[in-house]
């Protein structure tokens, strides 16, 4: 979580072709259209990868892998469905696979990590607060399963409704809610154990 994050400033974008139309153009062999699609989706795909994986460089690699897989599998996309749902499914599959592989390599390290304030934290403002909350989240979410974390991120940070998350993951809405409930419970326990000051804040909802 040490990498610097920059927020993307909102810009007035010109009217762009619909995602489905763009996909049809790409299927016709237009590589420039694919570049346009990558440029359009990079920020969201990278953000989701980063929030699930928790490491800037790994998230970048995974996001790039997602786009390469997208290029190779674009013929499988059914334009009757929302493109973002299909794209998110690809992102979550690749990210979850990555976390599982990483977990098997590292075998749950970071169990004794504690937030350490750095010189960068001397700055004031939202950026510092976000950074600190990010670090807390990184630590307490390490106890979640890849699927629990993915659902938590999509619900709480990507603001996706449970119904949409269920579509992305190909499961029932009740399963999503169940995972979310368990994720909160586990994170609450971790907060109380490692960050009691934050546990006080978060207790109300869990």
């Amino acid at each position: 979580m040490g990498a610097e994050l920059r927020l993307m400033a909102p810009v007035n974008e010109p009217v762009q072709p619909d995602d489905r139309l763009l996909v049809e153009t790409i299927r016709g062999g237009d590589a420039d259209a694919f570049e346009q699609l990558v440029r359009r989706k990079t920020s969201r795909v990278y953000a989701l990868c980063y929030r699930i994986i928790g490491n800037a460089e790994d998230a970048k690699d995974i996001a790039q892998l997602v786009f390469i897989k997208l290029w190779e599998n674009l013929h499988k996309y059914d334009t009757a469905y929302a493109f973002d749902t299909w794209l998110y499914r690809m992102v979550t599959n690749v990210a979850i696979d990555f976390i599982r592989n990483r977990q098997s390599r590292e075998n749950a390290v970071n169990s004794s990590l504690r937030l350490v304030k750095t010189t960068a934290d001397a700055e004031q403002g939202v950026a510092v607060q976000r950074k600190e909350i990010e670090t807390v989240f990184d630590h307490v979410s390490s106890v979640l399963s890849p699927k629990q974390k993915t659902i938590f991120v999509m619900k709480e940070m990507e603001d996706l409704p449970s119904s949409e998350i269920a579509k992305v993951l190909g499961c029932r809405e009740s399963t999503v809610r169940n995972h979310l409930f368990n994720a909160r419970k586990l994170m609450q326990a971790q907060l109380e154990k490692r960050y009691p000051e934050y546990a006080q804040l978060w207790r109300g909802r869990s």
Partner: protein
Amino acid sequence: MTCDRFRSRFAPSTDDAGLLAHARACESCLAVAIERDPDMLFRSLGGAELIPPGGIDLFVDDVMREVRLRTTETTMAPRPVSWTRRLAIAATIALGIVGGAAIYQYERATGTAPMIVHRVALRPVTFDSRPAVEAYDSLNATIVEVPTEGVEDVRMVMVFDDTLPADL
């Protein structure tokens, strides 16, 4: 959105994009939001689109380079041979073998075939030996024993007898 407007409108579990965006951007309003809705603690991390390290241009360039590389590899990869083409190749090989055999037979029949060295297989030959004379008893025979030079030397005995067959 002003902070006053945010504080008057914010309610727990809100899905209002404007309210969430403000809470994620304003430190003091985020504190208020967390007080009212503890979930805002981690919800504050979301929303903003993030830029990968190195920037979007570099990211997109990397992706497109890899895509073009893979496209080139796919184009240059050997294409699968169709069954008709495979059949044609097999027929050509068979024709070559039959033709070669026919030419060989023709040249052999007309005597112009090149000299062929036959390989002779060596087979072990077992000799079934038995004595030519199984019973011998004679008073006219002269027996001469050749003296040996050593203990292991072969003992040679010569029998002279006119009554024995001449071709023995």
